[in-house]
């Protein structure tokens, strides 16, 4: 650590913690064993602030802020698990389920899915909102991988790993809000992509069954979660 980096002191869930001034609340919380749930955040990729699961309350601010995007400040008083936050997290998760066709029982990632686990974690008994049942396609044109829009939560981990780690930038997003979609190249079928290196990093960082290896059946698609931390560590070692 260079001597110019300042140290800040703050309170997270009634615990006094110290942090470097450039750290986010999420990083500091995790360093101190305080669990904040996340879906789009993945250590080793740039933070995105999209999933909103990591929202926290900061004393003096009426807004809930994403802890993955909020840097620490001196004297901050942060709460990570109030009733208000729990309610919002549950509502958010129900919206995820209502917006696409997440049929867990017939998913390749059944039993390995972060969305499924998160529903359990936030004690979601059922989805209060009406399901939308959108008509979404599956891109199975790639010889090794399948992109199933029905199961995508638009966390953009795949987009970020493809760009930031693999350097291919095959994956991207189009449209906004509820219409947001993952695309390959300029919205062409994945199998025709000239930029895809077939590395499969996107598949292994995908939290759900939206990206899977071709041929994997129900409950067969476990992801190699150690892939990204390993790559990041190796890179740091070479720098």
């Amino acid at each position, binding site marked *: 650590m260079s001597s110019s980096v300042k140290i800040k002191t703050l309170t997270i869930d009634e615990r006094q913690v110290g942090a470097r001034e450039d750290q986010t609340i999420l990083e500091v919380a995790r360093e101190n064993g305080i669990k904040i749930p996340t879906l789009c955040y993945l250590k080793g990729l740039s933070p995105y602030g999209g999933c909103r699961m990591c929202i926290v309350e900061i004393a003096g601010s009426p807004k809930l802020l994403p802890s993955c995007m909020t840097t620490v400040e001196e004297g901050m008083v942060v709460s990570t698990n109030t009733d208000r936050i729990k309610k919002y997290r549950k509502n958010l998760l129900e919206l995820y389920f209502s917006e696409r066709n997440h*049929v867990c*029982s017939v998913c390749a990632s059944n039993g390995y899915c972060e969305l499924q686990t998160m*529903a*359990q974690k936030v*004690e979601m*008994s*059922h989805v209060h909102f009406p*399901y939308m*049942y959108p008509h979404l396609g599956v891109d199975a044109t790639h010889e090794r991988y399948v992109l199933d829009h029905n199961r995508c939560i638009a966390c953009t981990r795949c987009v970020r790993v493809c760009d930031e780690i693999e350097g291919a930038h095959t994956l991207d997003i189009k449209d906004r809000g509820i219409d947001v979609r993952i695309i390959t190249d300029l919205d062409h079928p994945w199998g025709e992509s000239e930029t895809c290196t077939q590395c499969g990093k996107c598949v292994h960082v995908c939290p759900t069954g939206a990206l899977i290896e071709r041929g994997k059946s129900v409950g067969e698609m476990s992801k190699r979660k150690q892939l990204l931390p390993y790559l990041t560590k190796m890179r740091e070692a070479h720098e």
Partner: protein
Amino acid sequence: MKKKLKLATLWLDGCSGCHMSLVDVDERLIEVAEIYDIVFSPLVDVKDFPENVDVTLLEGAISTDEDVEMVKRVRKSTKTLIAFGDCAVTSNVPSMRNHFKLEDVFKRGYLETTPGNDIIPDEKIPKLLEKAYPVHHFVHVDVFLQGCPPSADNIFYTLVEIAEGRTPELSLRTRFG
């Protein structure tokens, strides 16, 4: 001896897997039978849904006009209604037809997959709704028992807890799928 509770089980738009899982409680069925009388079920020969049922395990999504009538009737006569398994809780696999037009669903079901058949039956059978829905879309549900199917252990646990007058703590025991 304590008075037995009345248990009904119902099988709507599901695969009967949840009922298979109920039977999977194995020898504990004897304990279940000591607490409950099964008054209506695919497993017993009773035609009409009875009055004053204590607990109903409702398997399956709501997919036809008949299902809607039935679920409303069940709600009226049941103290504790359990959405039994993912189809009842989320509409699950039956809902995979929901983003197709009904017309295309019929074509696929009756014509394309049955070579030589050119009839789509439309009389004397329940009318398919535009979509398959979870149970709570139509009526209030008291307990959501997730799983495809829910495990025998969780079914047994739920039935015992309710009989003991407790609310089953299912959030950490169960999940979708």
